[in-house]
């Protein structure tokens, strides 16, 4: 990893989707860290200090919204993009309240479009 390389944390419990995200982001020049649930995600944020997080909501042990809430309680304001297929009104509201940068429905986006969104946010 070089000094200018941006780090993206992917918190996603679906191994297939997480693998494809990692692949696409690595090819786009990002350093990618993976976590499989909110608890691992919290540890990864503390250890790697990512520039941006891609967070799923529906995960075992700790969901993405709770993870975001815990980070905010610690004063951590890392940019977060919620990337989920769980699109209930309550969850959109909770994510917005916790200051999620953006709320994207996975199925609506192609991988390259998600990479473009991230590049846009990080001004890469």
């Amino acid at each position, binding site marked *: 990893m070089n000094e200018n390389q941006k780090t993206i944390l992917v918190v996603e419990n679906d191994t*297939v989707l997480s693998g*494809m995200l990692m692949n696409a982001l690595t090819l786009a020049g990002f350093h990618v860290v993976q976590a499989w649930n909110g608890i691992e995600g919290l540890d990864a944020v503390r250890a790697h200090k990512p520039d941006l997080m891609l967070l799923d909501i529906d995960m075992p042990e700790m969901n993405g919204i709770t993870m975001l809430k815990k980070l905010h309680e610690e004063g951590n304001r890392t940019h977060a993009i919620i990337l989920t297929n769980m699109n*209930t*009104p309550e969850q959109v509201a909770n994510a917005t309240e916790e200051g999620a940068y953006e709320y994207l*429905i996975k*199925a*609506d986006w*192609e*991988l*390259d479009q998600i990479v473009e969104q991230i590049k846009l946010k990080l001004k890469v």
Partner: protein
Amino acid sequence: MLKIKNIFSELKLGEKCRELGVDLWSCPRFIFVIMGAVIITAIIATYIVGQHYVSPDAIILLVSLLTVFLLVVGQTIVSAFERVVVGRNREITHVKEIIELRDQFVYIAIHDLASAATAMKWGMRTLEPKIYSHLPPTEKELFAHLRLRNERLIGLSRQILNITKLESANIILRNETIDPIAFISGELASAGRNFTSKGVSVTYNPPSECPLIEIDPKYFTDLLRTLLNEASDHAAKPTGAVHIFLSHTNDTISITIENDGPALDPLAQQHIFEKLWRDENGSRIEGLGFGYYIAKKITDLFHGKISFTSIPDHTVFVVTLPLHPIQ
């Protein structure tokens, strides 16, 4: 006698009690009539008895007995009311629980369905540049069909989710002030690939200026996507066109979405905003008839209006939305 019979038929006692789903002796309307009859009889009886037995003790006894009797009848009526109300409340709570369970089931099922479809979508997109050029024409066609079917699956899951959200009673609109010109441009950019895969060209003609609108961007997105998707599905085949126009007044904006497909069946036009409606060309046009229903529900949510005209090669939907939310 005939008059009394008429009064009873006017009261529609049996019908009303059946509506409430209670037996006759638990039906407030019936018990009220009985109570009225009892009171009249009791008063007349007291009068007659009072005329024959002038003793004040006898009158006091009679009035006391009458009062106790009326109290018992009153208590019966109150109990009947309570039984009806408690029964209804239980029923409402039960229905609410069932609806909540159904919604939860739909959310979970759609989440899992959409996750699998997303894996297919992203996987095919990743593999396409590596293997597509090496495939024989028939397999290229198969690949294209797989992509299209998968997109339809995603579209269907989105529609089911939208209907579940729109039909649940707890919709909270989170309005933001947005520029409609830029917002529609953004949506068209997102939908670009979808149009291309269907062989549909798109033009967008916004005015040079348009007032900002206070609206919930999530539901506004759903409305635009639904109408754009329907327009591209119903455009001429194999190559069609969709034209989008934006206009405004002092209080409203109007979004016009036009396609060049065949006219909608005149009979079916009457049912176009109904759930599960499907025109006679349903076998040719994919979809389950949810689209226009969703568009209408969202437009109603915004206190807007949706209308359409359809003639051969020209079907136009116009959505008019207030610039400021109506409480």
